[in-house]
């Protein structure tokens, strides 16, 4: 973890760009590590409290270590009526973790999300922001097979 300084430096001239910095860091590490967070606050001339206040406002940003693949289940109304609950149960069973947890091997984190704007193929999950639609609870193993 050495290049976080470069990542932050690459957006430092963006006015009000701390959220852009958080995005860039999260893209690299899947979360925002404490050391990198402190550096971002410093570069954008915010107190750590202020920067933390900004970062934690946004549900897409995480300050806790997460797995290599972040699986998010959409639970908004259209996905809900399309059977999101059953998909979520199947995901929990398959991964052996509950929402908010990471598998012991550090591979998968399971989260909930509101609508991700792919409602033509409900129910929808995302794996690291890539949407996968028409999820059938029976076929979770197949869907997750490419992520090893």
């Amino acid at each position: 973890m050495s290049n976080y300084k470069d990542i932050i430096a690459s957006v430092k001239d963006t006015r009000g760009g701390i959220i852009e910095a958080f995005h860039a860091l999260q893209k690299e590490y899947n979360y925002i590590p404490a050391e990198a967070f402190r550096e971002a606050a410093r570069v954008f001339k915010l107190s750590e409290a202020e920067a933390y206040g900004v970062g934690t406002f946004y549900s897409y940003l995480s300050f806790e270590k997460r797995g290599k693949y972040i699986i998010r289940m959409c639970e908004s109304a259209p996905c809900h009526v399309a059977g999101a609950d059953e998909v979520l149960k199947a995901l929990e069973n398959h991964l052996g973790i509950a929402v908010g947890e990471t598998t012991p091997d550090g591979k998968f984190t399971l989260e909930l999300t509101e609508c991700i704007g792919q409602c033509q193929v409900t129910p929808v999950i995302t794996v690291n922001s890539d949407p996968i639609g028409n999820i059938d609870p029976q076929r979770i193993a197949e869907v997750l097979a490419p992520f090893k």
Partner: protein
Amino acid sequence: MAEEKRIILEYADQINPENAGEYIKVGGYKGLEKARAMSRKDVIEEVKKSGLRGRGGAGFPAGLKWSFVPEAPVKYVVCNLDEGEPGTYKDRIICQKNAQAVLEGMAICGTAIDSTKGYIYCRGEYPYVVDLLNKAIDSAKEAGVLGDFDIEVRMGAGAYVCGEETALIESIEGNRGEPRFKPPFPGVEGLWGVPTIVNNVETFAALPYILSNGGEWFAGIGAPKYPGTKILTLTGDVNNATYFEVPTDYNLRDVIYTLGGGIKNGKKFKAVQVGGTSGAFIPEQNLNTPIDFDSMSAIGAALGSGAVLVLDETRDIVDVVTRIAKFFEHESCGKCNPCREGTFRAFELMEIINDGLGNAGDLDTLKILGRVMKNASFCGLGQAAPIPIQSTLQHFEHEYKRKFL
């Protein structure tokens, strides 16, 4: 009637949205060229004449909004691509099918209000749209069509309230996305304190066609008081759960039965929620209503973002509304008490009722709570949060009562 009318999406899947050259071949950037040859006042007059009203939900006349912008050395044009309303993906579709029209629309607005800098605020859930837009901007710059108008894409990070224009501005400034007090409106004092026009993606995308074909042409399409087309996204229990562009006088029943191909699996209709998760649930007897802004308001509903969620006869409305109440509890930014506390209590009550533990008194409490939230919340989120509850209590109260048994 009952047919689609494609203006913004006419060349969907026929041109590469990243490529300015392909868009120019089908008539693109003619509107901007025309606008640049006109006086600023005349551009605004043309947009006023078209009758174009905001497609982000509030339905405010675009030309009128622009006319309030005072003189200032720096002004901004902001495109609202936050699209957080569940069941809505039309702004994504517009970008993926016709991104150049959005850029052209923003530049037309820039010409009208004398601004040389635009921002697109794209929701964090669409990183692939951010990539597409950046390529589209590069291509337009290379083609030289944007002139001195610069466009920068910023990304949101999973906060529904950031679709509210002042919260969006806070977010671009790098702050928590909490709404600001209005007035002053952004048109007078917006991003970094200077005049800023915030419009929805679909509003911007209509502008090239208005400028090239004339305001009068646009005013003649669809409903006279809310002219043009509207892109709808159908979800739930319909056969064709996809997107459509229709004239604004299109009938809601036709949306479901013609475009939507009717209810799935031969079942019967129960209710439709129009406008996304903050919209009202509409019963069968109100289906013969045109979808335009004012007709929907007249039946106590809202066109909103143009999302259409259809529920068949077997659906548990109270369960769906409970899920929606959780959405608002989660998305409330916490700035004001009626919404922070109200969305929490509303969700709590809905869960009690949904679990079969409620009573008639809970319904009364929900009604009072809804009135307080509607009247006392600081922004549109808290004001709209009770609508799904109130509208289902109005039309489907028996479904709540059935849960008491």
